[in-house]
């Protein structure tokens, strides 16, 4: 018979406990998600009472969405992209065009009328999900235009420059296409549809997708590309196609994040997502650990909180000081703490479960005279 059917007993035991651990992990995650759903429900109802916290939680989720995508291309695949702010800009403007009320559309575009078809329709609140998905899809289309030429070449770091150039070109287009974007004046009065349900909902969905990607054969191929492109290629991995896949996923996340951001702050203008945004995202993924999705999420929230907390430095001390602090943090993390918070790993409840088991073992050990260590292994 095949050896797999004749596992020794001890090994079968460990497999059982592994399964138990997986289910404990899933159960705890489900529990936390349920708690989050309740929290989101009440959080959105009482947003006026805790407006600053509500805002930070939204911003954190929006940054985290873009960062999840960014860590897939930058960390997991090892391709240095500088383009997320461009994709966020595209997503933000498309969401604006889709959800701005008709009355506002006539009022805002004074110099040059808005082109069709956007001038004659608008999506109601129930269509916000379409607007956000549309933002992601448009960003993906733009990602195809940039990604195909930039990722074809052998040398990976050209992607950085090509995506940077794309961001700059996009900024110029936004300024110089007033019939679509209202030029440098921007668009005000975008309905503020974003709330915790939307931002956290998309964050959970996209993070779940990213986790599935990471743990699939695609994800392993992406990590192979990061470690050694040439070796990956000689193992039969279609390097170009997989890099493009990761790049497009990150573009989709950035597009959705841009749409959510515009619908949170209610305005869209060319400088809304500048190169600074990409720098923030870089800081977030580096802080969380390049390649870690949990790290990107935690980093996004930490960044949003610190960004708001340090606002006083910019207003009270010296404008620009905050950016200096962020830049120094980025360099220090890279030099002395390159793992970031999570390294390339992910958050799991294993530590907690093990601690609980140890605790239980100690309790039973006190009662029945068993050693704590052995009961940990038995469970």
């Amino acid at each position, binding site marked *: 018979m095949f050896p797999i059917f004749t596992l020794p007993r001890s090994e079968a035991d460990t497999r059982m406990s592994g399964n138990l651990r997986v289910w404990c992990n899933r159960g705890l995650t489900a529990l936390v998600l349920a708690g989050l759903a309740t929290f989101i429900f009440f959080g959105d109802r009482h947003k006026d009472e805790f407006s600053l916290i509500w805002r930070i939680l939204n911003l954190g989720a929006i940054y985290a969405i873009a960062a999840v995508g960014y860590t897939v291309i*930058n*960390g997991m695949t*090892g*391709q*240095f992209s*500088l383009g997320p702010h461009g994709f966020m800009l595209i997503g933000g403007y498309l969401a604006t065009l889709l959800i701005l009320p008709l009355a506002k559309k006539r009022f805002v575009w004074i110099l040059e009328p808005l082109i069709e078809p956007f001038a004659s329709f608008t999506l109601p609140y129930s269509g916000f999900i379409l607007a956000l998905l549309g933002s992601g899809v448009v960003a993906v289309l733009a990602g195809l235009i940039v990604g195909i*030429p*930039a990722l*074809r*070449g*052998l*040398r*990976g*770091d*050209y992607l*950085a*420059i*090509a995506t*940077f*150039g*794309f961001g*700059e*070109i996009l900024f*110029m*287009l936004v*300024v*110089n296409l007033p019939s679509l974007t209202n030029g440098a004046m921007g668009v005000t009065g975008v309905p503020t549809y974003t709330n915790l349900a939307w931002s956290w909902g998309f964050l959970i969905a996209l993070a779940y997708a990213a986790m599935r990607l990471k743990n699939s054969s695609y994800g392993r191929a992406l990590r192979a590309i*990061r470690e050694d492109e*040439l*070796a990956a290629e000689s193992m039969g991995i279609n390097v170009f196609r997989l890099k493009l896949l990761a790049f497009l996923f990150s573009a989709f996340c950035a597009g959705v994040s841009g749409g959510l951001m515009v619908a949170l702050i209610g305005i869209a203008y060319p400088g809304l997502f500048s190169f600074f945004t990409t*720098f923030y995202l*870089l800081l977030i993924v*580096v802080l969380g650990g*390049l390649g870690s999705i949990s790290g990107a999420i935690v980093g996004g929230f930490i960044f949003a909180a610190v960004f708001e907390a340090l606002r006083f430095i910019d207003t009270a001390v*010296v*404008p*620009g*000081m905050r*950016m*200096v602090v*962020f*830049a*120094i943090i*980025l*360099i220090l993390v*890279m*030099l002395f703490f*390159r793992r970031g918070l999570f390294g390339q790993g992910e958050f799991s409840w294993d530590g907690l479960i093990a601690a609980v088991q140890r605790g239980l073992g100690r309790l039973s050990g006190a009662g029945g005279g068993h050693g704590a260590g052995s009961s940990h292994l038995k469970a």
Partner: protein
Amino acid sequence: MAGYVQQFFNGLTLGSLYALIAIGYTMVYGILRLINFAHGEIFMFAGYWMYFLVFLFRLPWWVSAVLAVAVTAAMGVLIERVAYRPLRQAPRVSLLSTAMGVSFLLGNVIIVLPWAGGRQKPFPEVDFMRKIYTLGDVRIQAVTIWVPLIAGACLLGLLFLIYRTKVGRAMRAIATDMETTALMGADINRIISYTFLVGSALAAIGGILWGCRYPQLYWNLGILPGLRSFTAAVVGGIGNILGAMIGGFILGFGEILFVAFLPRYSGFRDALIFSLLILFLLFRPTGILGKPLKEKV
């Protein structure tokens, strides 16, 4: 006709400035395979050192210029020593992230410094640069003659350094194969420091000349010239010093011609430059002079 002559000198000036900056990118890329994002900020800092030395320390402009080049070159070496060297064996993304961090740090330090700040500052005037020569109906600013002359002298000096001295030979050797060069007994770290020293010094000279030509200083001055110069380095063939010079002149002349003949679209020039960059990456990623890079297994 007069217009053409003037535009020729404008193109020559801009081209030599781009060439000076592009060399720094191409040298560092050739040796470390790193896009040194901070190079544009190094270039910008030279102008600010000039400003500080002339207006705060009341030094004569020529003393300030020499000191500014020296200090900026030292900055380049320091950045490599502190921020890049520890990460030399790290994944590429880590190194690029750090370079990005250094670039943002330098740019924003200018905003934070009380003597500089986010507002535009004047570049100290250098008198002999501001003269205007008239020849018939051709009016040529002295600066458009001096800049190509000084830049040309620097470029010749650089070519001598690279191809006729021991340090230059070591640089070329490292660019070809760092490990073997180390086995041959060359001090890799010292040579890389020299590379940053030379590249930053040239960028500093470029920055000071840029200030003479366009006498305003602002904190993000380095970004766009830096990127145009990087494009120049790619167009010429990244890693190739002569290519960077040629690319710089192509970009300088191209930009001046574009602005002169299509002034309506001058706002799109950077879009055009980036399109050029992407076209080159698509169809000729090794640039005009570059040889295809062999991937080492």
